[in-house]
């Protein structure tokens, strides 16, 4: 195994601009193609890692020990084995292949994890919402919860958002997600709403 593994055209936290992603035994780094400040991550800050289909190819989602999330997308399907090996050897982390639900249903179970809300359809995630991207939640009606997203002024900056500046993922694409409403039945409504605020 090489001492350094390089991947081109990778995006950090849904950045507009691609960059180079470099993995080494001590950790990983990402640098935008046009230059600028690199983002680095220590290998021993990595708690778990997931591999799944994203809009731009495949994505590695890293959960850090401090419960924040780092997303890297733009990988090719065939990169998986190489990446799984280096995560195991260098970071003692399993790169878990997480298949998402493709059924197209709008019902399931909203579950609250350490760093994100996961909407599961038949025990498979359909999508995830990192808590860091939520700007507000409220009870919009009986059994209805409105989740608002941090989209800023919409004048998204180029380059990477970086792990330090959260709250930009909802506005990363050309269609910015501003609100999502859930129907939560029964008496759990209040509890779930508070969970979403975490």
């Amino acid at each position, binding site marked *: 195994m090489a001492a350094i593994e390089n991947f081109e055209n990778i995006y950090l936290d849904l950045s507009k601009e691609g960059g180079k992603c470099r993995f080494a035994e001590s950790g990983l780094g990402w640098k935008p193609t046009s230059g600028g400040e690199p983002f680095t991550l220590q290998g021993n800050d990595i708690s778990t890692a997931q591999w799944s289909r994203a*809009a731009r190819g495949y994505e590695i989602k890293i959960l850090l020990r401090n419960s924040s999330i780092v997303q890297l*997308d733009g990988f090719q399907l065939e990169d998986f084995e190489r990446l799984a090996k280096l995560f195991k050897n260098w970071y003692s982390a399993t790169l878990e292949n997480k298949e998402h639900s493709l059924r197209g249903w709008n*019902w399931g179970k909203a579950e609250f994890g350490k760093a994100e809300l996961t909407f599961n359809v038949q025990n498979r995630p*359909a999508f995830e919402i990192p808590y860091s991207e939520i700007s507000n939640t409220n009870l919009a009606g009986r059994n209805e919860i409105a989740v608002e997203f941090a989209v800023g002024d919409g004048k998204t900056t180029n380059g990477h958002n970086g792990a330090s500046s959260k709250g930009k993922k909802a506005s*990363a694409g050309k269609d*910015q997600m501003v609100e999502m*409403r859930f129907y939560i039945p029964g008496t759990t409504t209040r509890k779930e709403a508070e969970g979403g605020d975490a």
Partner: protein
Amino acid sequence: DQNGVEIKKFKRFEAYKRDNQFPPKVRDMGIVIDQKNATVVLPVMGRPVPFHINTIKNASKSDEGEWSFLRINFLSPGQGVGRKDDQPFEDATAHFVRSLTFRSTDGDRYTEIANQISNLKRESVKKEQEKKDMED
């Protein structure tokens, strides 16, 4: 059920079977209408998330200053609309995505998308009705 009323069986529908069936356009992290698979693909935190047209109630566009908004409403319990056999409403514990709102400065695009969703919905309802008529 116990009242002797026939429960219409929920008909299973599926947007995709494999993740290589997504239209290539999902790369742009924008809303994609997939006519062929009767599915609307919505970008959620960098992930393409399919919603079958059967789950969608309607889509509407509105404007506010320089922004245009597209709101997609899904069928969910307690709305007084939608046929019971469209969704597994018998699962009383299920959570539902009730609506998703996006914004963009390209209002014409949202008018177009809202129209496409309405047309797709109309076609799908028509097809379902034809199927039902055949069965009767």
